């Protein structure tokens, strides 16, 4: 029983990382219907930034949040205005998907050039600290990551519920043209939700740098995992996305425990397909999807 508990808790701790990544995707997809496949690459990029800040300037990775998250927000604004501003106005969503794929490979290879192919990780004084309770071991850093995931979901939730622009973001995710009719600048709303989404990639970057080792080509896998988490959680609900991440983490760890490590991805992508076929609105999605055929 203790072992099973440990497996589930490991899953939750891993899943918090998927959850943050998925919450960012959810915001971007929710307002603009962009499947931002480069989200994982952005996470890896910000992990490299954290790595650099740590190695060159000896800044504690968690302190880096104060630098990396605002930086990520600005990068998000920049990416939106340079790459997506025109494309979001097009009827055809494929252009935005292709842009994201192009951006992913461009940044992947730029990172290879700058940081080489050597896997990196940030080892801090408290990296190996472990909390033991009732026979269950919880690495301190992973627990911190879980806390960070909940904190960022809460911040985004409050942003969406309590601020004027956040309300406009929720409105835009339902009907972008109708927000325009209210005199709201649709482009600005898109830019803000994109920037908040990339800001979450900054948070995830800190998590990635401190808990995992990573290299330049990890981004795609993280993006796909975030998509799976998003499909589980349903679009347009940050806590749903976070929960989707946690569930995915648990599924992966259970699969590894019962069937072996090789089954991790078979299980998670299998669930991904099943959810898309039978529950396309996600486990927590309120809105039923409109049938076209």
């Amino acid at each position, binding site marked *: 029983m203790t072992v099973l508990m440990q497996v589930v808790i490991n899953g939750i701790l891993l899943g918090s990382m998927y959850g943050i990544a998925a919450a960012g995707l959810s915001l971007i997809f929710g307002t603009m219907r962009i499947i931002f496949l480069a989200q994982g690459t952005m996470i890896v990029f910000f992990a490299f930034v954290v790595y650099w800040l740590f190695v060159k300037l000896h800044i504690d990775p968690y302190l880096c949040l104060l630098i990396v998250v605002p930086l990520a927000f600005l990068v998000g604004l920049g990416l939106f205005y340079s790459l997506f501003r025109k494309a979001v106005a097009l009827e055809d969503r494929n252009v935005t998907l292709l842009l994201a794929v192009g951006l992913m490979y461009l940044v992947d290879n730029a990172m290879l050039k700058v940081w080489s192919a050597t896997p990196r990780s940030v080892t801090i004084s408290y990296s190996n600290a472990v909390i033991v309770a009732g026979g269950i071991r919880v690495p301190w850093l992973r627990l911190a990551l879980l806390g960070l995931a909940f904190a960022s979901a809460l911040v985004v939730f409050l942003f969406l519920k309590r601020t004027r622009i956040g309300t406009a973001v929720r409105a835009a995710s339902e009907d972008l043209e*109708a927000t325009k009719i209210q005199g*709201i600048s649709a482009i600005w709303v898109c830019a803000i939700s994109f920037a908040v989404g990339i800001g979450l990639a900054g948070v995830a970057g800190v998590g990635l740098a401190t808990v995992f080792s990573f290299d330049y080509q990890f981004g795609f896998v993280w993006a796909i995992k975030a998509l799976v988490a998003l499909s589980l959680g349903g679009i347009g609900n940050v806590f749903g996305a976070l929960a989707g991440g946690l569930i995915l983490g648990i599924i992966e760890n259970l699969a590894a425990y019962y069937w072996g490590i090789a089954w991790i991805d078979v299980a998670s992508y299998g669930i991904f397909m099943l959810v898309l076929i039978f529950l396309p609105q996600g486990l927590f999605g309120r809105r039923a999807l409109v049938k076209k055929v």
Partner: protein
Amino acid sequence: MLEVKELSVSYGDVVALMDVSLEVEEGSIVALVGSNGAGKSTLLKAIAGLLRPSQGQVLFMGEDLGHLNTKHRVDRGIVLVPEGRRLFQGLTVLDNLRLGAYIPRARASYDESLERVFGLFPVLKERANGRAGLLSGGEQQMLAIGRAVMAHPRLVLIDEASLGLSPILTRTIFALIVALNQQGTTVLMVEQNIHMALKISSKAYVMKTGHIVLSGTGEELLANDDVRKAYVGERGSKL
């Protein structure tokens, strides 16, 4: 107040509006009637800045709006109540109203506007914290109009307010539009319920395949044989 001069709008190769001219006087209710596909909604969208005309001008209080996007037109006081209401269904009634008052000019008079909306539509006050999607059809139409009122408009463009509503509810909505007008808001409405629209409007335009084919006071058009035959007669049973 509003002057549309020889306006043409095309969707790709399809011409939706052709040399349309009309005038709306401050304080009036003007109706725009005609069969489906005549270009009425297109005209409202062009006035609201959601569509770019290929030719012609839209003047508001003497200013050419040609270069202004929707945001700036809302800022000048032109607000659209779109066809099909286009409410934010998952958001609360109050959130919908807040979004109506999004532009800075409207924010300044938020409390006053909210009071006005709740005065016109008391049911919205009762349902303020409920989701907009859970309102009945008539209440949703009230919310759509209320959302526009929150922008502190001078001219409201109402597209098919009676769509999908029962005759009784249609009457209620029309009475509310008249009340809104009496508070000093000018109204330009597109309506399929022609008889009722002509009754409450001081001036009306009849559109057909992208053109304005007839105009006059509501009474004149109600008395016009062509109008009666073409539009009112077939829908008379509705009244």
